[in-house]
């Protein structure tokens, strides 16, 4: 028995220790699992051929898991990653904390779309290079719109959206005029509602960081949203996020859907039962000068803890370059090029032929992360507020608004609760003296 025990023990110790081998200039890249990122993983031969001394190791994760992991690692300076894929929310916060290395080798930085680059610049330095940008827009069923005797303008108002949604709804036939996000979360319902509130003249905080949920603009936003969803939304909308609404829209249950521009390729793709009956329009407004669309980009950044800065700079430069765009176009066609990052892409006549290319550009250009609201605000961010406390506060507020959508509380109760919560958290964090 004794030799067996020793043998097994030894085997495990060997296995445990054997896993610590390290290769030379191996870049570990943390990334989200969207189509564009997966495509890039298949095209990296182009980079490694030009840089034979650098090898790439990918860690592909779901967005929320990735955010949690990368945040822990960068805050603790764990040094597990050399290149990070991060969102527009993280870049200004992490950049200010000195957690990111400024990018020095980005290909033609003047060519980046100003709306996108503005959100990634901290103190005049580009902290992350955009790989893929998106906004939100209205996707609608052309057949249902015709049936209702209406015509969607290129730039609709909320009033029109309300009218059209109610006209298209036929609950007996399980057709709902509009599908909107209701699932609680700062990146779920609050991304939509914050962007929507911008077009109603609302803002999260005034110039002194005082929460504004007690103001009439937020009441108008929430009242409109709740009554629209009650009249023309699908049942159980309080648990619907992007994927649930996509499934509803693709199976023909929604007349309109206001969500990320990336959805355009899904609703017109082969999995959609309504692919040939979809039209697009800009996100709605209320004539106040701001539209209800958001702005997001997945960008590549280099953590301050990396030992391989030079190699990482080279890779980020390659992945976000015009050369990469052409590489994708040559291998997989212009429709598969990562959208929303470069002016030159939209000036390219080949790319102009791609459906929804112009709508995506117009949507991105109509959002300004540095001036997101009608009234002045002390923060950056369209559908979020770029402060570390936002994710926590907005998730709580998102739960309150989701409960209001489920009919568990009225709009007034929800707003009062949101105001109390936000005020308490902002006071605790030291923003309100």
């Amino acid at each position: 028995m004794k030799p067996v025990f020793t043998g097994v023990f030894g085997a495990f110790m060997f296995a445990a220790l054997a896993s610590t081998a390290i290769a030379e200039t191996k870049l570990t890249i943390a990334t989200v699992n969207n189509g564009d990122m997966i495509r890039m993983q298949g095209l990296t031969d182009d980079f490694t051929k030009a840089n034979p001394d650098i090898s790439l190791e990918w860690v592909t994760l779901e967005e929320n898991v990735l955010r949690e992991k990368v945040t822990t690692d960068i805050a603790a300076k764990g040094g597990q990653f050399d290149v990070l894929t991060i969102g527009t929310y993280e870049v200004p916060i992490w950049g200010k904390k000195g957690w990111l290395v400024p990018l020095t080798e980005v290909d033609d930085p003047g060519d980046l779309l100003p709306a996108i680059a503005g959100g990634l610049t901290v103190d005049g330095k580009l902290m992350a290079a955009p790989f893929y940008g998106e906004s939100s827009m209205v996707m609608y069923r052309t057949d249902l719109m015709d049936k209702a005797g209406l015509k969607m303008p290129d730039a609709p108002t909320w009033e029109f959206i309300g009218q059209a949604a109610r006209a298209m709804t036929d609950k007996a036939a399980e057709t709902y005029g509009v599908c909107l996000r209701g699932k609680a979360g700062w990146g779920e319902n609050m991304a939509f509602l914050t962007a929507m509130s911008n077009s109603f003249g609302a803002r999260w905080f005034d110039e002194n960081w005082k929460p504004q949920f007690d103001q009439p603009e937020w009441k108008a936003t929430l009242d409109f949203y709740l009554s629209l969803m009650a009249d023309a939304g699908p049942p159980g909308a309080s648990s619907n996020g992007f994927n649930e609404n996509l499934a509803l829209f693709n199976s023909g249950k929604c007349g309109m859907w206001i969500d990320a521009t990336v959805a355009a390729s899904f609703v017109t793709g082969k999995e959609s039962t309504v692919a040939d009956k979809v039209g697009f329009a800009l996100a709605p407004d209320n004539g106040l000068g701001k539209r209800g669309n958001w702005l997001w980009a997945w960008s590549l950044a280099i953590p301050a803890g990396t030992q391989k800065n030079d190699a990482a700079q080279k890779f980020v430069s390659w992945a976000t370059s015009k050369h990469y765009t052409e590489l994708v176009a040559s291998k997989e066609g212009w429709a598969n090029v990562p959208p929303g990052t470069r002016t030159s892409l939209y000036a390219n006549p080949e790319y102009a032929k791609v459906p929804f290319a112009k709508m995506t550009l117009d949507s991105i250009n109509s959002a300004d992360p540095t001036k997101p609201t009608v009234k002045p605000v002390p923060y950056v961010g369209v559908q979020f507020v770029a402060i570390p406390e936002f994710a926590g506060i907005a998730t709580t507020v998102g739960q309150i608004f989701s409960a209001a959508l489920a009919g568990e509380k009225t709009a007034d109760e929800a707003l009062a609760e949101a105001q109390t919560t936000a005020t308490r958290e902002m006071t605790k964090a030291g923003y309100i003296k």
Partner: protein
Amino acid sequence: MARTVSTRRKLLVTALAWAIGLLIFFPILWTILTSFKTEGEAIALPPKFLFFDWTLENYGIVQERSDYLRFAMNSIMLALGSTFFALVIAIPSAWAMAFAPGRRTKDLLMWMLSTKMMPPVGALVPIYLIFRDFGLLDTRGGIITVLMLLNLPIIIWMLYTYFKEIPGEILEASRMDGASLGKELLYVLTPMAIPGIASTLLLNIILAWNEAFWTLSLTTKDAAPLTQFIASYSSPEGLFWAKLSAASTMAIAPILVLGWFAQKQLVRGLTFGAVK
């Protein structure tokens, strides 16, 4: 006096047990079925149960995109490794608590259990920093240690319960015959407690296999187990339910098969200590 149970009652209870069993198993069954659908059929409303075009394409894509075997190998190493070391520590501990209890044994047991009551995220930063400083991030050795410590309270408790059922006189007799402490543990106590140890072992393997919080937080690539493999297929923006289901089915298949073959032992062991 044995009670007679009517056939009707037996049928009723059997039907009820099957209904509950199916209800519990349904999400897993649904995942397995979805893995054989196309992405379009996976989201179809109303959902299709059995009558769809069965396809293996999702498995092909998953296999092509990820190195399943590397993840699976890590899962096996982590589950077996943490269980092995946990048993090496837990058997003597449980022996001491069952056969040589002190004044504070009960308190000690309660304290050990109380460590399971803290949310794991509360310990994430300190453990992460320790791992960073000792170079244990993304190593199998590091994660085996964490999983072992994580499950140790449950293992000690289970073994303690089994050992309490064994009459102390038998151990005394072996001591009278001149057995040393090591021999007493290895040749007398362990063989008698085999069913209990076996079910503890199986339960711990299942717990370690399914552990997601620590394995996701502390591993990146070299030591990443199947939980990481699944996490790379879920997506908040994009409907890839069929591929995600295929990845999930591949991740749970080994433990499902193990559980199936070991169910007799598992049930016997789990009821052995408490009811006998």
